[in-house]
């Protein structure tokens, strides 16, 4: 049945009603399976404790309670973690949008001798698995000269470890951002540039005032990607941030789940709070989510 639908074909008559029924039944079942864990955790987060631990399953709470949300925010400094993650994600978005489009524009629109070779190196680097650079990046951050108590040889202090820079800097101009923006700038015509030059506009002004405003859809897509990646990242913040006050929301949620294995109400409340920003972003900017993924499909 399913492959029939792939062909996009339809046959008029009695078969059509049957096909539609089969489609709706299958689609509903599949979607329900995917959606149930979500629904279940939302319902759990509003249930009183005695109804959470009920057998057989009690689906709807007898009354809605917000106590689990209160617990989640009082047993751990969840609000602070939320703020930390938000700051890190926003910084990641701003730096990647600016530096990524600046470099992407140069690679797409300006002629210079190292254009092709440098871009090829960037592309190749995208294939290097993150696990290889994990340990040496830690070393580099720890031994950056003149920061965090380090002298000019990069020793004596902790460098950028345990500061938000340890997360912002390594990800501030991702190769993917450069690549993504370059591909978009390539689709824009070059004659506007020539005209602007004749009019006497500087190169940065041409980029900033003429070309960048034309890439708004691409910036939105890249911004969403970067925000989601920053907000959801877990292993790297866990490695470089020791100070409990600097923890991110994913670290907070993990520690909470680990230490309060039986408090499922607050756990579900925490998980939902940690998903909320992405969910809001999705509701507001749905079409850019889909466009972005479709782009990654095209590039392959």
């Amino acid at each position, binding site marked *: 049945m399913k492959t029939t639908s792939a062909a996009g074909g339809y046959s008029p008559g009695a078969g059509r009603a049957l096909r539609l029924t089969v489609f709706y039944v299958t689609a509903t079942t599949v979607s329900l399976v995917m959606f149930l864990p979500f629904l279940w955790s939302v319902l759990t987060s509003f249930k009183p404790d005695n109804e959470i631990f009920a057998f057989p399953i009690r689906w709807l709470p007898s009354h809605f309670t917000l106590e689990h949300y209160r617990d989640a925010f009082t047993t751990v400094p969840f609000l602070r973690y939320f703020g930390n993650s938000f700051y890190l994600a926003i910084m990641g978005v701003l730096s990647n949008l600016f530096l990524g489009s*600046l470099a992407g524009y140069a690679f797409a629109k300006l002629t210079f001798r190292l254009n092709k070779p440098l871009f090829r190196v960037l592309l190749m680097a995208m294939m290097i698995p993150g*696990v290889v650079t994990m340990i040496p990046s830690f070393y580099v951050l720890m031994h950056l000269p003149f920061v965090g108590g380090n002298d000019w040889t990069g020793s004596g202090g902790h460098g950028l470890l345990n500061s938000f820079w340890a997360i912002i800097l390594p990800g501030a101009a991702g190769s993917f951002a450069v690549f993504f923006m370059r591909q978009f700038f390539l689709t824009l015509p070059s004659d506007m540039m020539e005209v602007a*030059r004749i009019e006497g506009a500087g190169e940065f002004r041409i980029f900033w005032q003429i070309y960048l405003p034309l890439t708004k859809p691409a910036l939105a897509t890249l911004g969403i990607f970067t925000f989601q990646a920053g907000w959801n990242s*877990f292993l790297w913040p866990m490695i470089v941030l020791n100070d409990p006050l600097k923890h991110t929301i994913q670290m907070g949620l993990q520690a909470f789940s680990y230490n309060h294995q039986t408090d499922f109400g607050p756990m579900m409340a925490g998980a939902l709070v940690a998903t909320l920003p992405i969910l809001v972003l999705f509701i507001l900017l749905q079409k850019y989510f889909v466009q972005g993924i479709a782009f990654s499909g095209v590039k392959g």
Partner: protein
Amino acid sequence: MIRSRKLHAHQARMAYLFISPAILLFSVFTVVPVFMAFYLSFTNYDVLSRMDWVGLSNYRKLYTDTLLWQTFRNVLFYTVIFVPLNILTSLLIALLLNKAIRGVKVFRTLNYLPTLTSAVAAATVWLWVLHPEFGLLNGFLSYFGVTGPAWLSETRTAMASVIMVTLWQAVGSNMVIYLAGLQGVPDYLYESAKLDGANAVQRFRYITWPQLRPTTFLVSTMSIIGALQLFDQAFVLTQGGPANATKTPVYLIYQQGFNQLQMGYASAQAFVLALAILIFSLINMRLSKAEEPIV
């Protein structure tokens, strides 16, 4: 002539200025670390004091490291099950929802929702779904008189649980990629196939599947690379247990490097994992090429 050369020189200078922040960060946090990882893997670096050259002894130690090979067996098992299942499920759902029918957008959104959660949040939710007594899954099974296992604490089911959770999270975005791919298959291929009397299965076999080859290649490559570096879900769901059944190489490298501070040795382990990723990606590339004659 002179003017134009001057202009080009100016343009090039500006271009180097534009790319310099990105290239600088790239050099410091990618190029230097890659070479350094290689160097570190030949030392006994431990953060605190030592960084002596120890030659091949880290790599020799890998041989007899039974825990390392167990983590590799775990993650290979995971990859071999997860990647095909991921492709199959995403493709089937995309085929199902690739229609202009009322309500199809709602179905697509519902299937996409799990990809919006972070790995940690998803794993947290599933800790509860997989709860042996009061969880959703076993509660559901009990409707049919089946007593479900303690999913996360039994060696037999722990890895299956991790596969289930990661699959739930991955299918949505791959479905969207496949939907985009399906949209790119030209209609006339189907029309002429129908005229030639090809049935649905044949149309899928000889048109849809070959036409989607680049899409499948992309999806499989990304999911292989991601699968071999599995960490977040294994960390939150099972802490690598029970009895190391779900411990992955990245997990081990993290512990070895950042808990036990054996960073030299951990770097050697990271290189072995990178090699495995390379080999699997190449195998995948060969498999994708082998399909070519069909087109």
